[in-house]
């Protein structure tokens, strides 16, 4: 029997029971589609986090203090919180090129929150950042309209403010009109110098719902003279981030007289490390999704086996007739194997098509990014599923003795 004849016989076999074939195909296509879509979602979310972190700047170090330091023996007096508090002097020391040659720029960060009002319109800004002009380039935060404040503004504690995109639109309707206007933060009037360019969300918080003011102004009007929340350090080069981190650690340890026995009270997060971690997380996430999808593919495969077993039982008599007419073992085997493989290949093709359509849309807030190898893999696996899961029923069919098959009612 030529391949073409085998193929024709298999097609006729499948079309004889269209609904059943369709449902089996559906099972496989859901499996294949799930693999491709879920891998694309996992990949897409990983890519999104990566690009946002890259937008944040990969040569960025964020220094914060963990508070008490920890690790000191019981009974021994803990160091006062002030000992490890980050200060503007730390910022000045870190900015010193002789002490920290691999540091390009340093910006202090104090955060506060407050309600901003423009006439009758008010908006609660969950992050009011007090800093220096170096903060914007270091954190990759360009000004969209207007301009940033200057070091002079910081020195003289000018009441100027740069609004985030969301803050500006909430208060003024259109971001462009905000520049030059006055906004009341707490009881103090601020002049809007500029509006930040829109930023992509990195998480649950809207990064555009911010306002940035000179740190001196924030201290004078809002936050008082407490410790800094963070110090943002930009390394001179992407390859020198580790060096810069070492210098920052050394400098701060020395300045705050941290005993060698205690764990460092400073936490320095390295954006490259975060990137690496998040990539690892995304990979795990993708693997998890792929596993779930693979399970559905296996379930689809079992569906193929089930249907083929039913088909073989149902067509036992037909198999007997075919054998009586001279069909050989491998002809019967071939026909049923092709039927099973066709079922899963058609299912695979439908699954790929559905996945291609689905990945055009945002799924659960993630823009899926197709992984081409997942398509090849899913298709290959679906064909293998057909061969593997179809072989048992096909062997059963081929092994039937003609007389038993013919007697079957």
């Amino acid at each position: 029997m030529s391949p073409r004849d085998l193929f024709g016989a298999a097609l006729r076999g499948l079309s004889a029971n269209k609904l059943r074939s369709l449902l089996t195909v559906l099972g496989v296509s859901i499996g294949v589609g799930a693999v491709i879509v879920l891998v694309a979602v996992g990949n897409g979310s990983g890519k999104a986090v990566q690009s946002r972190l890259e937008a944040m700047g990969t040569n960025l170090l964020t220094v914060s203090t963990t508070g008490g330091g920890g690790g000191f023996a019981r009974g021994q007096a803990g160091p006062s919180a002030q000992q490890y508090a980050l200060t503007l002097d730390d910022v000045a020391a870190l900015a010193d090129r002789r002490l920290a040659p691999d540091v390009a720029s340093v910006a202090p960060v104090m955060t506060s929150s407050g309600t901003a009002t423009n006439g009758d319109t008010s908006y609660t800004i969950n992050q009011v950042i007090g800093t220096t002009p170096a903060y914007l380039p270091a954190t990759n935060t360009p000004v969209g309209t207007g301009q940033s404040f200057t070091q002079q503004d910081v020195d003289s504690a000018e009441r100027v403010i740069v609004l985030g995109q969301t803050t500006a639109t909430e208060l003024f309707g259109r971001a462009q009109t905000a520049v030059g206007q006055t906004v009341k933060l707490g009881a103090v009037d601020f002049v809007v110098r500029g509006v930040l360019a829109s930023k992509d969300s990195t998480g649950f918080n809207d990064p555009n719902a911010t306002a940035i003011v000179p740190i001196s102004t924030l201290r004078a009007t809002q936050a008082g003279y407490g410790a800094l929340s963070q110090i943002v350090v930009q390394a001179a080069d992407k390859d020198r981030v580790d060096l810069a981190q070492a210098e920052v650690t050394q400098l701060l340890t020395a300045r705050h007289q941290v005993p060698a026995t205690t764990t460092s009270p400073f936490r320095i997060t390295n954006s490259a490390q975060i990137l690496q971690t998040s990539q690892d997380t995304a990979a795990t996430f993708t693997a998890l999704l792929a596993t779930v999808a693979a399970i559905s593919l296996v379930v689809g495969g079992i569906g193929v086996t089930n249907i083929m077993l039913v088909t073989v039982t149902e067509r036992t008599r037909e198999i007997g007739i075919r054998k009586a007419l001279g069909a050989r073992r491998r002809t019967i085997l071939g026909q049923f194997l092709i039927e099973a493989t066709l079922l899963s290949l058609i299912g695979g093709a439908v699954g790929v098509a559905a996945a291609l359509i689905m990945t055009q849309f945002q799924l659960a807030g993630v823009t899926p990014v197709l992984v081409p190898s997942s398509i090849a893999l899913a298709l290959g696996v679906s064909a293998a599923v057909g061969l593997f899961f179809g072989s048992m029923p096909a062997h059963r069919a081929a092994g039937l003795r003609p007389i038993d098959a013919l007697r079957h009612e």
Partner: protein
Amino acid sequence: MSADALIDIRGVTKTYGAGETAVHALRGVSLRVEAGEYVAVMGSSGSGKSTLMNILGCLDVPTRGEYFLDGSNVAGLSEDQQALVRGRKIGFIFQSFNLIPRTTALANVELPLTYAHLRRAERRTRANRALELVGLSDRADHRPNQLSGGQQQRVAIARALATGPRILLADEPTGNLDVHSTDEVLGMFDELNAEGRTVVVITHENDVAARARRLIQVADGRIVLDEVTR
């Protein structure tokens, strides 16, 4: 005893099961059928005539004994070789027609030719010729469920003839047919035999057996009568 008997079975027994519950369907049957004979095998149900037919058609293998079909020993053949023998040398006609459902008459007739590895065009020609022979050319595109019982059996005969087998093996071929169709089918057998084709019919109907030229009666797994009737 000529060496070229078409069917030659010697001391064939067939036992189903073992020990106490063993069923002896055939208890030592020897039979020779020459080419061109028209043989009717009769017997009541349970006599072993169906088992005999299955063994003659290579659908089943004897427990003991030898079977020479057209000079070659069938018992020693592999499963695939037996399939080949069935396809080339034997044309089956069954009581329940056994056409493949949802498949046109023409495709049904083509099927054994497909298994015999004939080319597509050749298959088409021969299948059409076979259908013509049974007078069903105009029903080539009909499916079994669109045909009457008599027509279905004629399609089955066309299918049995398509490969040009040496033996036509019919198992109660008229069991499901009305009088008119029975006449039609039996007439066809007569013609085929007249053309020199060997026909073996298993039946329990006397008027069917009466058309044959040799009558074999089976009872309790043995041949009890073997006579030339015409």
